[in-house]
């Protein structure tokens, strides 16, 4: 098992290397002089030259890359051009907000998707199943940011159930923090809930047809036990991959949700940095989110064997 984990981590190195190259090249894709673009047309030639020096843009590309990788490996993601604050410090301040949002969205989507997917499979080809299919197709079709705006309008502005501005961290005051995060988490998690529910339904349908399920029923086990103890565990393994991919996608979706709900997370920080052309921040945020995404996929791969013991750790 430990050998397998080490092997998977080693396999990650080329992928992370390619990700690093792509994020590094981001700044070089900017049309024109990146330093001038960042500082704006009002900048003096001295300022532009100073920024070029600070970013190492005067050196050959390969040297720039290795210097940048060296700095990143020591935790130096650069410094914001506008606030002069180290990017990693800002990321560390904001990531907990994004993490709490995406985790709550994950919890919401699992609470909705697994029972509804199982129920739809058990009630296959009935009215409940058709309603479920309609619900999931609507879930993947409604834009999250639009749903967020509507929720803000109805539940915050009209009904006053949730705050429409401000933010309280969930780790400072759990219940108050939950009031600020619930609407964003529901709107962010809806797409994932719909995708996972469809996956759970189709996996359950496949498993429920297998002989061991018939055998479990023939033994006289209750339907509850057959479904929960025998069918769901095996049906969950394929759904787990979808959950992993979708949880990673939540990190991307959080960029939009945080903008809609004005949450002080990593996504909002990224959008503000893009608008201010603060490229060290953009580069740092994108690299950080991509690394977290890669790690999530690794964890999902490792968990897969737990839910499907037929998979051997080789």
């Amino acid at each position, binding site marked *: 098992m430990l050998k397998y984990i080490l092997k998977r981590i080693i396999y990650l190195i080329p992928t992370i290397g390619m990700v690093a190259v792509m994020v590094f090249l981001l700044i070089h894709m900017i049309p024109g002089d990146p330093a001038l673009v960042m500082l704006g047309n009002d900048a003096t030639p001295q300022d532009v030259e100073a920024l070029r020096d600070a970013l190492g843009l005067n050196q050959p590309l390969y040297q720039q890359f290795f210097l940048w990788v060296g700095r990143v490996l020591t935790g130096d993601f650069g410094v914001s051009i506008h606030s002069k604050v180290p990017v990693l410090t800002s990321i560390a301040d904001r990531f907990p907000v994004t993490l709490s949002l995406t985790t709550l969205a994950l919890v919401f989507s699992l609470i909705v998707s697994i029972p509804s997917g199982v129920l739809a499979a058990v009630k296959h080809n009935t009215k409940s199943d058709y309603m479920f299919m309609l619900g999931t197709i609507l879930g993947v079709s409604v834009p999250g940011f639009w749903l967020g705006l509507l929720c803000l309008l109805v539940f915050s502005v009209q009904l006053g159930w949730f705050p429409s501005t401000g933010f309280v961290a969930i780790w400072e005051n759990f219940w108050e923090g939950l009031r600020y995060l619930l609407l964003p988490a529901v709107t962010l998690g809806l797409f994932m809930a719909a995708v996972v529910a469809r996956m759970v339904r189709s996996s359950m349908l496949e498993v429920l047809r297998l002989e061991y399920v018939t055998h479990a029923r023939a033994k006289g086990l209750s339907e509850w036990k057959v479904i929960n103890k025998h069918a769901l565990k095996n049906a969950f393994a394929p759904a787990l991959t979808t959950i992993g991919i979708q949880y990673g996608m939540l990190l*991307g979706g959080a960029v939009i949700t945080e903008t809609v709900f004005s949450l002080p997370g990593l996504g909002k920080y990224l959008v503000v940095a893009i608008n201010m052309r603060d490229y060290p921040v*953009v580069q740092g945020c994108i690299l950080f989110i991509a690394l977290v995404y890669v790690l999530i996929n690794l964890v999902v791969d490792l968990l897969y064997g737990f839910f499907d013991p037929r998979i051997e750790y080789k």
Partner: protein
Amino acid sequence: MFLKRLLKNKIGLIGVIVIGLNIAVALAAPLLATHDPLTINLEAQAVPPSAQHWFGTDEYGRDIYSRVIYGSRISLYICLLSVVLATVGGVATGAAAGYFGGLVDNVIMRCMDALMSFPAILLAIAILAALGPNLYNVIIALGVVYVPRFARIVRSSVLSLKEKEFVEASRAMGNGNIYIIFRHILPNCTAPLIVQATASLAYAILAESSLGFLGLGAPPPAPSWGNILSDARNFMMENPMMTVFPGVAITLAVLGFNLLGDALRDVLDPRLK
């Protein structure tokens, strides 16, 4: 035969009708719009729906109904072109990786893995942050994001097809690699490609509107659905209906492609059901 089976599928039929209506609205936009979508009218700023302005107006007094109608043109244009770009890129790279194997396969697929190491919308945001937001950069960004999905599908199809006897026979007849790929292999990959393209169109509409909402889509005053919603956000307290109509338009378009995608998957590749 295929069309008959698709239209017999109720979900597919609804999808075809919804998409057909969307395309019809986009093509007939000048006939359906009641106002110029770009004309500013400072005497009618953020007014609610009325007989004159069916969906109301935005902060600059522009008619939202007309902007939503014209918005279908921009959104469909971006989505169609980005999916075409992704399909061409994905087919070329996937076919090369699968057919030639070895180093070519390794290099191409590691690049695809790297592209898939980013959440899709984040990669599009990163590309647009570098290139700057404009209509064609949005098409490029979304196209690049979806290339790996097509490449993986084509590669796996090519891997199994290249060992088949009809390919061996064609090779024995002295046909070149390019001829074999285009004449014998790619025509056999079309079913999963069509399914993927339809699903990608739905994702592309969602992604394009999200990018527009963030201010990274077609630059203002272009009436893309994401832009209209972004404008509406600042005035949603005064005129809540401003947010409703563009959102409904996006949902309907995405729903149409999702329904068609599901039906196509059932008709073309029942194993994926």
